[in-house]
């Protein structure tokens, strides 16, 4: 690599808190006149991290210094950090004693980071199963989702999608709650269930949005029409850094195939699966997700040099013995874009 480095912002949209945004390309340029260029991708990796105690209560108030991020065992330097729906900030600007090693020397000043007020809050994509399997619980589900939408933090935006055999965008991403509820109330019952197809398309939409985002699936489970499987969809969510939450309207043991698939895709992306047959349980699940959005941490870093071009394992640890009792949940890793 050349001794001269220059960071270029590749795309403005990617300059947001994209999960695995190819935010900048590191372009080396030879000093000679042959204009030989070589390119190394510098991926901004963004993590949503939930920390809970043994009872499942969210632990708040942690600082960058309390976290240690490892990628394939290599310690990473955080570039940006945020808690809950507050705007993330540059770690170098966080003024606390014993802060981690300054990153400003490592990252050029003109490198855009997903920090500032415009990145406050989450972009929440709600994916609602309107297939005939949901026929009986359709109306109650809508009530629960409407409550959830109204209760979201002011900083959050929400999109409302529905699916049966195809996906329908009932309400595009908006901070207008009434618009989102109108979209919800306009949904109609469909036929076959292509859950994983629809989830994939929702992730594609979410990936285009700057900032922190999550997808919440509300479904009763059996998939009768998808041509893509849950694990492939989960891998895409993982790569894009988008946690998936699933609220299944079936009991855990009623449909073991769907239950297992839900658990896998939520766990690997740092989300959670809820099995809530009753309307009350569904409402509780939504409350829980809302709380998690408000309590989880956002961290971003540029990976340290790593020859591994395939799957990279991510581990987030809490520093200090007094924090070891807590549990940390985030995505398992990602594949760098080649």
């Amino acid at each position, binding site marked *: 690599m050349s001794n001269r480095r220059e960071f270029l912002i590749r795309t403005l949209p990617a300059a947001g808190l994209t999960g695995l945004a190819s935010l900048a390309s590191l372009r080396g340029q030879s000093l000679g006149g042959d204009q030989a260029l070589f390119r190394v991708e510098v991926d901004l990796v963004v993590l949503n991290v939930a920390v809970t105690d043994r009872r499942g209560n969210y632990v708040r108030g942690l600082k960058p210094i309390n976290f240690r991020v490892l990628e394939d065992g290599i310690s990473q330097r955080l570039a940006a950090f945020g808690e809950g729906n507050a705007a993330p900030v540059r770690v170098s600007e966080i003024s606390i004693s014993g802060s981690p090693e300054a990153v400003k020397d490592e990252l050029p000043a003109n490198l855009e980071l997903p920090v500032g007020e415009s990145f406050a809050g989450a972009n929440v994509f709600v994916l609602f199963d309107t297939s005939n399997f949901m026929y009986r619980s359709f109306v109650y589900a809508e009530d629960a989702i409407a409550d959830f939408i109204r209760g979201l933090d002011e900083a959050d935006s929400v999109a409302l999608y529905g699916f049966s*055999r195809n996906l329908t965008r009932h309400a595009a991403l908006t901070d207008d709650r009434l618009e989102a509820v109108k979209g919800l109330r306009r949904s109609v*019952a469909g036929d076959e269930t292509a859950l994983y197809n629809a989830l994939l*398309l929702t992730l594609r939409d979410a990936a285009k949005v700057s900032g922190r985002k999550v997808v919440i699936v509300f479904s009763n489970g059996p998939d009768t029409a*998808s*041509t893509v499987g849950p694990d492939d969809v989960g891998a895409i969510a993982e790569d894009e850094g988008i946690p998936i939450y699933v609220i299944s309207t079936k009991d855990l043991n009623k449909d073991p195939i769907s239950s*297992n698939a839900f658990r896998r895709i939520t766990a690997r992306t740092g989300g959670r699966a809820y099995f809530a047959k009753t309307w009350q349980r569904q409402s509780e699940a939504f409350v829980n997700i809302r709380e998690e959005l408000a309590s989880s941490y956002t961290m971003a870093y540029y990976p340290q040099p790593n020859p591994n071009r395939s799957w990279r394992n991510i581990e987030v640890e809490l520093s200090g013995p007094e924090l070891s009792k807590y549990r940390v949940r985030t995505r398992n890793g990602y594949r760098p874009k080649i």
Partner: protein
Amino acid sequence: MRRLLCSLFLMTGVAFSAPAGESVEQARQAERAGRGMEARELLAGAVRENPSDPQTLLALADFLDRYGDPGAAEAYRKVLDASPSPETARVAALRLTLLAAESGDKAAAREGLKRLQAAGQAGWSDSLLDGAASPSEGFGVAEIPGIFDSFLRMSALSTDLEPGQLLPALARNLVTGGYRTSRGGESQQETEYLKLLKQYLTQARELEQFAGPDEMLDVPACESTETAALLKILGYRLRGECGPDAVLETVNPSRAFLSIDSAFPLAELEDAYRRDAEFHHPYGRTQLPVLFGPEYWIEAADAKGEDFINVFLGDPYLARLYVAMSKMHRPTAIALKEAIPAKELKNFANVLDFFGETYVLRDGKAVVPGSDQVWQKIIETPPSKGVEFLRALTETDDGWTAAYYDAIMRTDGVARTYFTEPQRLERFYDALRGKVTSPGPARPIFRATADLLLLATRLPFDANGKPVIPGGVAVWKELFTQHPHGKYDGKLTKSAQNWTAPDDVLEALFAMSRKVIENEPLKIFLAVSNIERQRSKPLAEATVRRLMLSFPGHGDQFSLFTETPLSDEAIVGYLDAIEKVSKVSRPTRRADSIGNFQALTGLWQILVRQGQIPADRIEPTLVRILQPFLGIDNNQKVFEAGRDGVLALLEASGSQPDASPQDRLIELLAGRPSPGEEVAHAEVSKRLAGLFNSQRLVSLKTLFDLADNLERVSRGESLNVAMANRLAETISEVNLPQAQLSTPESNAFAQGDWVTDHIRDQQKLNLQRSVDGASGNPQQLLEIRGEIAGVLRDSLVGLLYVYYSPPGAELIRSNPLFVRSHDFLGSDQSRSWEVARLQGLGWPSSAGGRLTGSLIGLPYALADSEQNFLIPSERQALIWQDLAPQILIGATVPRWWGVTAGEMHFVGLHVRMGRALAAASAFDAELAAKVFALLGDRVEPSRLWDVEQAFRKGALAEGLEELAPAEVYELAQLMLAREPELADRFGTPFAAEIRELAQREPEKLSYERIAGVFGTPHPALSESYGLELLHLPLFPTMMGYSSRILAESWESTNLYWATLADETHLEPAFLNLRVPQWTQQAIERIFATHLEDWPALLRSMRIVADRQRTQSRAMLDSAMRASR
């Protein structure tokens, strides 16, 4: 586009100062060179310099008109204002009139007519434009409770429908999905769909009562008695206090469901409560036009009642009669209604539904194909008796006479002449009818088979009008007498012994067409005929015999011969190779051999289609590809056969010997660009390479280099570890999902054993270990190359997958095992040569998406797999499951390299001329007679009658909407050929331009060539992915696989896009990028009510086109401003 704009910038400033005539000539030159935008600006500049010169003004107006520019009408107006010569004035006024009438601008049309009359055109009256567009005669009105849109939603109908279209569409839904037969088959039970619709009507009546006579739902305040009453009807209650905490909560789920499903504005109501504001919502009854008036149907119903909608929903036979009557030629339907009681007609509603569409009464006489006497003999009633004839036609032989009449009515030209020869007409009917007429052909809800229609419309004829029997009569006689695949029909076996003439064979095929079961002889006949159709030299009898024998197992492969005519030897050689490779004993090796074989022949087919293999090397290259597959007995040979095939393709396509096989094949597949098309070509190449990489497939270069290295290892060199590691690294990312699955998922996961073995074999691949294990034995070291045969198969198959990938390509992008999971054997090892199919739907039975079968039919299978990833822009608008893949392959199979602007313009001129002629026919009786006679060969009588009626009412725009682009394209073509004087008189300025273009570039601008560029593939109708325009009438809905035929009879999509591209001056090479996008967008915007709802597709295409026009005009305007 960019190139055009650059040249535009360079020339501006020079041309504008030139004399008008010179600028017009320069513009002509620019246009001829394909620089339409430059020509447009030159003409605009000339007009700016000479604003009152009629000829300059006319040159600009003509230009704009020829390209469908919306500024054409205004330009003609300026011509007329500039005191032109009488002839120029006539032309300008004619075009002004027709353009205005086509766009529905009656005031401008009147102005044009006045000017036309002033220019000396006699006989054209503007009284035509005074007609009222609606309501139509023969309709009454019924009322239904509630809002129109809500009723549409609950009826599962497109909200784009006009009120007059609702009842036919609802009736169709009631017939196909309103009832199901009870277990004993004795009665019909309502489906959930119908139950919900009825429940909705009850709720709507309650809301209507609540709304009262002023038809308004009024809630003065949250805290009011109206709140409780309204919410009770809606199935909700208020949770929380009135004000910001107020929330609607379900209390009666059934009612709440209806409220949501019918789109009651719940969110707005809730919002009013939260703001403690008033709520007002209009809610009244909806008036619906009813064919023949509601009383007719109420009287004909089984159950008595006074409310039309209740009666209508309660009688499925009545609904079917409504479907039949509403799609019948209207005067004919009215005559039937007046002569035959509805209760009697209802008994034959199924026959009328299927075949009544072609019934026509004219001057009290039934129109019949062929001789009146024969029809009188068949049904014992003369056609002159009009309604009585149609009644007999419908009732005779359980509907077989009607089916026969319908099939023959759909033929034209040589076929019509042949089939309607009196003796033959009767003979073939007798064969079709047989001795026992039950069951009739109209028993099911959809037509069971397309055999009869296909036989009538796809039979090939020679230049003398005689039917072509491939291989001669004797070989077909053998098929029926020796029946190598099992006996077809005892009677035919016997009669076949005496066959001597083509009619004997066809008589048998008519007899077979009544069978509901597999009609193998007809399928063989059509398949072999399709091969024969493309050849200059007929197939030899022995070859036909071989094809017949091969058909049951390998018939799907025949499409290879249909698209590319081959010698008899090559055909037989291909079939031999299939048989050889099918005999490879070990299943995984066989799968790899078949995969390599099919991928290579698939690549060969693409390169031939794209003109990248010279004509004299087409067949030798195929023979060279096949040769190594004749002796496969180990994996090393599988690999070598694959590699040799790639080298054969590279050599035949003129590749440099040192070219990277991977890069070169991608470059070849991306197409053969002409100079100036490099930018678009690079985009296409990039897409292909990106999709290939997303499947984590190994580059051919890596594989071949590795194989070379292994060969050197056998001579004592050491293994190139870096290269082996690169291969291992790529494969290591491919993981079978089973490891992650729970036991129940694993049990239901249906990837197929052979696929699992194929992927596992690759995961186990360790070349270093194999080299070590060979202990220096040269032969063993050489054989190690066989270990990468499966990897090579995936790479070759992957190239085909990415080439045919539909826009979006979600499965290829998201499922890294998609290509590797292609199952070439099938669970019972019998699917290797059948068309590719999507295997399994839903998790886990889909195994994450995979195809089974051969690579024949891959474009359709990929489009089928991808269609559920399309996102409808309308709620409730389900993608057309059977039709979307066919429309998609119209965009994924063709490539447009080396296409000229002249070719696009040729299409655009025809489409515009066809519309102009149709529009002019509204004013001119002589022209109308010719136009409607020609359209009558393609457009079904009921639709043609609708067009005529719309024209008579002066609603020209409405009438033209009924005609598909392919129909107006063909109309222009036929008028130019058959009525040149009328074409010139009314088809100006298009006719002269078409002639000039055709004269200037006779090879490029022949109808055959245009069909090969802007036609569509017909894999079901022609068994070929080659592009054609068959100009068949639009087929009716049929069951199962046959519905693909319906989709293939729609040939308008690419003609429409070519016209759009011509209008917007798109560089032809960019069609390769835009057409897939436009097609995807059009499908996503379709809000169709039923399978034959072609107007919905046209509406959707127009929306996409309008957006494109807006974008390109904005871009061009800005470029123009910058250039001045």
